[in-house]
């Protein structure tokens, strides 16, 4: 069970959270301008990153907030959590490196 650092409440057990999928997939202001291909990618295309993955979590059984996290999917270690609207933090090379 992961230990997740909610930007509001601090470190809490995974059970209190709900995973929210890949982060930073922005919904277009006007979806009608998106062609089928682009819309299909928006709906379904995912980086499914092996390595540092930007993802959303909601502290649903806590403060209720959605927030973003960077987690290395090869070892499940979190590198950062940050609030919605904040920039994806830059990581030192070593941490950000993607394992093949």
């Amino acid at each position: 069970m992961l230990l997740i650092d909610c930007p509001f409440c601090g470190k809490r057990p995974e059970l209190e959270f709900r995973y929210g999928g890949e982060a930073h997939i922005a919904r277009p202001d006007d979806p009608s301008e998106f062609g089928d291909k682009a819309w299909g990618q928006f709906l379904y295309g995912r980086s499914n990153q092996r390595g540092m993955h930007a993802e959303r979590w909601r502290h649903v059984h806590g403060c209720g907030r959605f927030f973003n996290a960077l987690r290395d999917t090869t070892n499940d270690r979190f590198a950062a959590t940050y609030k919605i609207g904040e920039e994806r933090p830059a990581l030192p090379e070593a941490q950000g490196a993607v394992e093949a």
Partner: protein
Amino acid sequence: MQRFSALALIRHAFTGHKTWRPQWRSPEPKPRYDAVIIGGGGHGLATAYYLATEFGIANVAVLEKGWIGGGNTGRNTTIIRSNYLFDESAALYDHAVKLWEGLSQALNYNVMFSQRGVMMLAHNVHDQQSLKRHVHANRLNGVDNEWLSAPAAKAFCPPLNIEASMRYPVIGAALQRRGGVARHDAVAWGYARAADALGVDIIENCAVTAIRRGVGGAVEAVETTRGAIETRKVGVVAAGNTSTVMAMADLRMPLESYPLQALVSEPVKPIFPCVVMSNTIHAYISQSDKGELVIGAGTDAYVSYTQRGALHVPMHTLEAICELFPIFRRLRMLRNWGGIVDVTPDRSPIIGKTSVAGLYVNCGWGTGGFKATPGSGHLFAWTLAKDEPHPINAPFRLDRFRDGYLIDEAAAAAVAH
């Protein structure tokens, strides 16, 4: 290929089993092949086997980054059934079940396909509606599936608790008698041995690291940890790692890879005659020929490549197992493990061509692709050989996610495995 039989065993017994030869060779990669399969799981090996047997393409390499069958093929709960709802899925999975029925003989390898019946439990009115919808659709598609009352379900599986006082009582079940289990490792090894005998090179410890493309973007070669290999046809069958491999050709896939866990109990004498699945309270269970209860747990909620998951996931499953089978409460977990399952938005696989010429993909089997192994391999081989899909896999094309023609088994009835 050395034939396997009881007689052969007796003959070799006299020589102390000294003269058995490797079941598949360990060749050095050649500089070029007619086709390269990335991924030595059941599906990849079956693809190579059918390319060689059915389509006469034997100059094929299967590249496996670890050991063959070490992916999900070697870590699944081996449930085989074809009672899927939609016409497309029923056709796909039943194609596989038919191949399973003669597989041991075709491969000359006992894959222990055991048609002991797969029973899916209904716990409420909604379950009943959904399972009956399956029963009727299956019947019209020529797939066996029948509705059982709760007492009939218990008669079929005596350890089952059907007391009305249960929190979620069993109100009935759908039974596919042709469903069952098989020996997962034997499937990989059997295909490998048979493909190898036809000339296919099975190259282990060989990870693909890049896909090289030429003018017009067509596939030219793959780079591997054991050097570059030229080829015009690449079939990606990398299950949990598909997104990573496809990214080498700049394709972003409609896939997410999640940990899926399973566990076995200590072995006991035969007590559990069939396969039972309860989707509503999350339990999947059968007993292997070695005696351990094989139990499927759920997926963890997040993308991960760690091949393990959290403790609360198997705990949740064992709660359900103990409710359904209270006599198993004192049995003990022997081992728990995880796999990486590649899940599509509609929980149906992708088998077909891609926008990159010469690049084909077979993925998205998620929590339930073992059962499809022979069919999937056969259809994918067809697609690779003819550069067009077989009618059965045509609906499972990648660009259905662009225009919306999903085959949404999940939305229709959310049944895993």
